[in-house]
C-alpha cells in the first residue's frame, strides 16, 4: 500500500514529499486545485476538515498537518534512509525546538510575504505593501538569530541534517525564487551556506523535478 500525498503543487505538501524521499518511502501524489476550491469540496473536507494542504492516506490511516506527518514518518522509518530525528532524546528535543521555531517564528512572516507577493491576485485580495514591509522586517530579525545559531552549529539542531532544516525547504524556495528576496538569505554568510547545503540535497532536487 503506497502513501498518497494530496496537493503536490503547493509548498506544505512538498515538506512531506522531501521527507518521504529522505526516508526512502514510496508514495503517489493526488493533485488538489486551490484556485477552483477543490480543497473546499465535501470529499476533501472529510479528509482534512480545515481545508488545508496536505493530507496523507496510508491504507486506512489519514493524517493532516505537514509537520505531524513528517514527524510520524521520521519515527516510523527511523532505521531506514536518513535519520531526521536525532539519536538521543536530547537531540530529538533540539530537533523539535527548531521545528517549532520554523512553525512559529519563521513561517508566519514568510507566509504573509508569499500570500501577498505571489497569490494576492489569484486568491482575490489586495496586496498590502505595509504587510509586506513588516513581514520582511520580522523575517529579517528571525534570520539574524539563525545567522548566529548557524555560525556555531552546522545545522539547526546540531551537526546533523534533521526535520528542523528540512521543514524550511519549501517556503525558502519561494523566498529566493518568486518572492524575489534572495538577498535576505545571501546577505547572511552562515544562513547562505546552510541554504546552499540543504537545497542541493538530492531529495529536494528530486521533489522539484517531480512537481515541475
Amino acid at each position: 500500500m503506497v502513501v498518497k500525498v494530496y496537493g503536490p503543487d503547493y509548498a506544505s505538501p512538498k515538506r512531506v514529499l522531501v521527507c518521504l524521499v529522505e526516508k526512502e518511502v514510496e508514495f503517489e501524489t493526488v493533485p488538489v486545485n486551490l484556485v477552483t476550491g477543490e480543497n473546499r469540496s465535501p470529499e476533501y473536507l472529510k479528509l482534512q476538515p480545515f481545508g488545508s494542504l496536505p493530507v496523507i492516506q496510508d491504507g486506512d490511516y489519514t493524517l493532516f498537518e505537514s509537520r505531524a506527518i513528517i514527524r510520524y514518518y521520521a519515527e516510523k522509518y527511523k532505521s531506514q534512509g536518513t535519520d531526521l530525528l536525532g539519536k538521543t532524546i536530547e537531540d530529538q528535543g533540539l530537533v523539535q525546538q527548531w521545528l517549532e521555531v520554523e512553525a512559529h517564528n519563521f513561517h508566519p512572516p514568510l507566509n504573509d510575504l508569499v500570500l501577498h507577493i505571489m497569490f494576492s491576485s489569484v486568491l482575490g485580495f489586495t496586496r498590502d505593501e505595509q504587510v509586506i514591509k513588516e513581514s520582511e522586517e520580522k523575517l529579517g530579525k528571525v534570520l539574524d538569530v539563525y545567522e548566529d545559531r548557524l555560525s556555531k552549529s552546522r545545522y539547526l539542531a546540531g551537526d546533523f541534517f534533521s526535520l528542523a532544516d528540512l521543514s524550511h525547504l519549501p517556503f525558502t524556495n519561494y523566498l529566493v525564487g518568486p518572492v524575489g528576496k534572495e538577498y535576505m538569505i545571501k546577505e547572511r554568510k552562515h544562513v547562505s551556506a546552510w541554504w546552499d547545503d540543504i537545497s542541493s540535497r538530492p531529495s529536494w532536487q528530486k521533489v522539484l523535478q517531480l512537481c515541475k
Partner: protein
Amino acid sequence: MATPVTVYGPPLSTAVSRVLVCLLEKDVPFQLVPISMAKGEHKKPDYLKIQPFGQVPAFQDDEITLFESRAICRYIADKYPSKGTMGLFGTNPLVKASIDQWLEAESQSFNPPSSILAFQLVFAPRMKLKQDKALIKQNEAKLVKVLDIYENRLGESRYLAGDEFTLADLSHLPNTQYLVEKTNRAELFMSRRNVGRWWDEISSRPSWKKVVEMQNAPSQ
C-alpha cells in the same frame, strides 16, 4: 532524576502555562524562575543566551536547555513516558501521530486567532494599549470557523485525538482560559454544545486548576 527541572517565565504567559500544566500532568517536579516582561527581563543578554528570540518560556533539566512550549511538552512526554498521565502523547506511533496532528492544528489554526483575541481583550487594556477593533473582529471570525470544526470533531470523539485527554487538548488550555474566564466572549465556546462540554472537562483537571492558582497568586 530527583533534581527539579527549571522553567523560566511568568505563569500568566500562555506559553509558560502550557509547559507548567504538562509538567504537572506528568508528575515532574519543577521550579519556576519568574521573568518580568514588564521590566524587559526577557530581552536582557543573560536571558537571550538561553532563548535567542527573547520569548518565554525556556526550560532546563540536567541534560538540556530548550525553548518553544510545544517542543518542551513533547520532550517531557518522550522523556517520562511512564510517569503521570501516560497516554498524554500516546502509547504507539499511530496514536502519537493523531495527537500530533491535533497539536499542530492547535498551533497553526487555533493559536493565532485566539492569541490575538486574548491579547486585544485581556492584555491590551491591562497594559493601557488601544484595542484594535478591526483586528478583534477579523480574528473572532477566524476563531469561529475553527470552533465549528472542533464542534464537529468533538461530536465524534470525547477529546480531540480520541477517547483520552492528550497533549492536543492540553495545548488549548492557556488561551481558552483567558477567553472564557476573562472576556465577554465565553459564549464562543460555551454556546457550542460539544466544545462547551470538552472545555468543562479539560479545565477542571487538577493540573489546570493548579496552574490557574499560580496565575492568580499575588506578587506577579
